[in-house]
């Protein structure tokens, strides 16, 4: 499905007609350039590749330079593929925020904030073992038992334990698009989006008729 690449800018509160505040995220999306069109004859599937944000030609390696030269465009920092057959799009075309409209539901994909090595309470939502009082100590956020004793004589694969948390690819579905600014290429959506400020986001249109992609 056709989409666009964007960058998370920050949050703001807007107000609806009843005067109720809505928390909103600002995304700078596009303009994106089509850098490659994949066809069934050549690649055995259909898709378009979009490029976002220009890059210095000095910092582009030779294979990539050739890739951009084929499409007759400047080098781009971020390249993302969107599957689907789009007959009226050509190489080098620009895609802007006007492919969306206000009050539309969209999906946003990005990488969540990294949280480092975390325990099971934060990572998997365990509730801990004991209490903080009644004579107990250091059991409040403990994982508890990780399996039976001498019968399996081992810990099963996939047992939930502590470890690196966050920095995962996350898709938030059915986010409401509140405002569009075509002059400055801005999308204003309700609620929060994954990742840090200035991190890349992929904004997907939802296929007509179905809520999920």
């Amino acid at each position, binding site marked *: 499905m056709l989409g666009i690449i964007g960058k998370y800018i*920050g949050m*703001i509160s807007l*107000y609806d007609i009843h005067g109720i505040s809505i928390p909103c995220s600002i995304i*700078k999306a596009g303009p994106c350039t089509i850098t490659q069109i994949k066809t069934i004859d050549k690649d055995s599937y259909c898709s378009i590749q979009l490029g976002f944000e220009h890059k210095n030609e000095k910092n582009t390696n030779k294979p990539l330079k050739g890739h951009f030269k084929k499409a007759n465009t400047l080098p781009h920092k971020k390249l993302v593929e969107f599957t689907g057959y789009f007959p009226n799009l050509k190489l080098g075309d620009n895609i802007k925020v006007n492919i969306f409209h206000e009050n539309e539901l969209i999906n946003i994909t990005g990488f969540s904030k990294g949280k480092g090595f975390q325990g099971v309470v934060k990572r998997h939502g365990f509730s801990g073992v004991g209490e903080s009082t009644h004579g107990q100590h250091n059991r409040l956020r403990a994982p508890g038992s990780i399996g039976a004793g001498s019968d399996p004589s081992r810990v099963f694969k996939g047992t939930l334990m502590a470890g690196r948390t966050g920095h995962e690819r996350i898709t938030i579905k059915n986010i409401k698009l509140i*405002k569009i600014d075509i002059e400055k290429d801005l999308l204003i959506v309700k609620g929060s989006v994954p990742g840090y*400020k200035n991190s890349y986001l992929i904004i997907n249109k939802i296929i007509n008729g179905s809520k999920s992609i």
Partner: protein
Amino acid sequence: MQNIIEYVQNKFNKNIKYSFNTGDTITIDYEIKEGERIRLQSFKGIVIQCKTNTFTLRKISGNIGVERIFMYNQPSIKNIEINKKGNIRKSKIFYLRKLKGKKANIKEKYK
């Protein structure tokens, strides 16, 4: 990045810059909805804190302290009047909550 946020504030919000600060006594006229009717109500009090998007007013009504949080861009706010400028040393004057009567007064700032 800050420019874009400022641009969005100016375009979609009223983004009025008010000149009051912590310690000032101000009167706010704001709309409230009663069934079908919309009427103006005023709230007069001392600003006890100013945050980036909100500020808090405190007043004493019938021996009971009342605090209300307002947003700078809130559409229901129709008018803000500054009655008195306060001479204070802190930006957040929560100590007022513990004081009563004469001690809860704030000196006026003269220029």
